């Protein structure tokens, strides 16, 4: 007789047999693996690159991967915007890594942490043996100060595809209406221009100038532009210098006379979007955002005004780039991809970067595209940024940025709220807070 249902005993037997079978299958030796990091015969090398999702939306990395894959039959680059750094670090620690490339890395925030934690490896040698077009000129062609920013202990850890620098972004129409036709070059000229806009606009909602609420973009850039050497030997901003005190005083004067939003930056972005900000000291990409929102003819990007014309160390800047993961399965292939995709020879990519409002990192992009091609006339302001950055000092290689930023963000609000606090006291508090936090970072 055919039984259609299982008895309890039969069920348990079946379950046990199935479990034992699965266990045996799991214990069976795997097919002979290919050599470490290499695919078995006929398979493509899967080169995975982990990228921040915002970057994938801004820059055509996917398209570059497709082009690279089309030119390299044995390699498949996959752009992965999973942003799963924690998993990547865990993999590096375990020695079995899925990803070969990692980004976006902003050196002033990440390079020390990424190198110290063993997340990324230097790539000088990998570039030197790369056969991709542009590999031989990449290092020489890169703006030297940007290359210095992408390096740590004289080794290149990041290939930047663009740089950000702090600039003065201003509205031609608002400045023109106030009788100002050029970007201010000094703090005094900046103050006068902002005062003129406030006096003449008749629009109570219009903000003559704004900061954006971060150390590097605000007081940090003021101090960097005022001093020949803005950083102390410990790697901090020189808070106790006369120029730093003057920068804080200038900042407060602008806030106190309501030439900026409250505290210098409160709600600046919403006002900016509404077209109610006449100028903003921020990354150059903010000027391009303004052009995209309000029209290309409305915004101009210039170098930041300085304390005294012709002095100082330029501006704060940093590259946006990608690194090679430590213990990556395909370190050479991923560097080949980087060189192919955003090396100096790939003019299509350089053009895409420029058109997205990012400033390119190779001198050839300025000399052969921006300053030459009529189509890129609207981006010639980038040449001024290149010159500014070429003459600027890279930010010290340490983990102190956020420490100083947190101290600054706290104290600048107190400083602009409390008229009895002097600039010297504010600077001292920022310095003391920073040093106290740095003290905590010393391993006992």
């Amino acid at each position, binding site marked *: 007789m055919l039984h259609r249902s299982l008895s309890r005993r039969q069920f*348990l037997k079946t379950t046990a047999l199935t479990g034992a079978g699965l266990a045996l299958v799991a214990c069976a030796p795997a097919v002979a693996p290919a050599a470490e990091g290499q695919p078995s015969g006929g398979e493509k090398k899967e080169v995975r690159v982990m990228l921040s999702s915002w970057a994938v939306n801004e820059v055509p990395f996917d398209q570059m991967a497709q082009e690279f894959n089309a030119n390299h039959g044995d390699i498949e680059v996959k752009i992965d915007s999973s942003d799963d750094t924690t998993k990547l670090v865990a993999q590096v*620690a375990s020695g079995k890594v899925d990803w070969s490339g990692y980004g976006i890395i902003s050196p002033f925030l990440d390079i*020390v*942490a990424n190198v*110290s*934690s*063993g997340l990324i490896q230097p790539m000088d040698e990998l570039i030197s043996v790369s056969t991709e077009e542009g590999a031989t000129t990449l290092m020489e062609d890169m703006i030297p100060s940007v290359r210095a920013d992408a390096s740590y202990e004289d080794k290149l850890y990041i290939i930047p595809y663009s740089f950000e620098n702090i600039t003065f972004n201003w509205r031609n129409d608002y400045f023109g209406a106030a009788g100002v036709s050029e970007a201010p070059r000094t703090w005094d000229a900046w103050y006068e221009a902002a005062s003129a806009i406030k006096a003449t606009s008749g629009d109570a*909602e219009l903000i003559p100038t704004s900061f954006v609420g971060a150390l590097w973009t605000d007081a940090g850039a003021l101090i960097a532009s005022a001093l020949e050497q803005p950083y102390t030997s410990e790697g901090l901003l020189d808070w106790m210098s006369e120029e730093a005190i003057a920068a804080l005083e200038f900042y407060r004067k602008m806030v106190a006379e309501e030439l900026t*939003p*409250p*505290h210098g930056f*409160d*709600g600046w972005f*919403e*006002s900016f979007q*509404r077209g*109610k900000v006449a100028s903003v000291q921020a990354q150059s990409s903010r000027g391009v955002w303004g052009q995209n929102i309000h029209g290309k003819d409305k915004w101009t990007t210039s170098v930041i005004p300085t304390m005294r014309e012709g002095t100082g160390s330029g501006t704060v800047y940093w590259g946006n780039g990608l690194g090679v993961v430590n213990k990556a399965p395909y370190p050479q292939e991923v560097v080949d991809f980087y060189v192919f995709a955003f090396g100096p020879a790939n003019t299509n990519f350089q053009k895409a970067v420029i058109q997205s409002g990012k400033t390119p990192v190779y001198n050839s992009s300025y000399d052969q595209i921006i300053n030459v091609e009529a189509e890129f006339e609207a981006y010639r302001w980038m040449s001024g940024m290149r010159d500014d950055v070429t003459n600027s000092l890279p930010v010290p290689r340490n*983990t*102190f940025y*956020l*420490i100083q*930023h*947190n101290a600054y*963000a*706290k*104290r600048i*609000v*107190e400083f602009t*709220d409390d008229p009895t606090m002097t600039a010297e006291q504010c600077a001292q508090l920022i310095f003391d807070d920073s040093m106290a*936090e*740095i003290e*905590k*970072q010393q*391993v*006992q």
Partner: protein
Amino acid sequence: MTTMQNVERVPAQQRSAWREFLYQVRTLRSQRWGNLWGYVFVAPALILYLIFQAWPIVRGFYMAFSDYRWIIPETHGWSSFNGLANFREMAQDETFWRSLWIAVKFTLFYVPATLILALFVAVMISKVKNSKLAGFYRVVSYLPVILPVPVAMVVWRSIYHNEFGYLNHFLERVIGIGDPPNWLGSPQWALTAVLIVTVWMSFGQQALLFLIGIYNINIEQYEAAALDGAGGWAQFRHITMPGLKPIFVIVLVLSAGVLGTTVEMMVLFNTGGGPAEAVLTTGLYAFRTAFEVGDMRMGYAAAMSLVLGVISMLLSGIVFRLLRTERA
């Protein structure tokens, strides 16, 4: 093959010594462990729990007693054990105490405000006789809970904007307040601003719990009370409130978690803690310490989180103790 069933079927006096021994062993095992197959079926869930819940707790507990720094691999092992050093540092860390005080202030306002609003909304919805209309109100009150936080915060940033915000526009033009608050920029108002947003985003969940509790109260109690002349307030006080006691326990215990931080704070003010660190709660401070600043001192951050966890457990214990019922 001898089975439990076979042994049981044989009268005790006819069993051999060996069978008797087996019977005793199996009886004992059955009494102590129950059916072993149950363990097999529970195992997958238990393994997942051990890996993803228990192990992180144990690891975090160890980290709290170590000088674990994310960017210094040498500190990741057992050798970085530093005893009570993190807790000694915490005792002298002004930022920690300030952040704890901010967290306590926030919780002291958040818990009653959310509780009262949720209870009020739940009672009001329970009074709506039209079932479709009641459903509509339930959806509306729950909507903020399911709204993605970034989207909600974009809306709230527009509401709070010092120049163009709807709130200040209302205060200025309708109420006639000449100098309305700078909600997100002023250290005096930032905590209030984030408190309003957090209450708005979470009261719907608690209202739903209260509503479930109210719907579970026997309607005959209200009818009997009405016959005895009890008014609405008396019914609420003597029937609804006692009936909702188990729900109060759940709501209060869940609220203990806000002592740390809320995602609203991070989206509205990033992780900087707001203007002059006015909303830097201990949770935010721990996050900053572990994931952003300097060496990324996860050991110290774990110690702060442990202290927060212990405080939350104590609060939960007090709630259970005070509001203990047969059902919760």
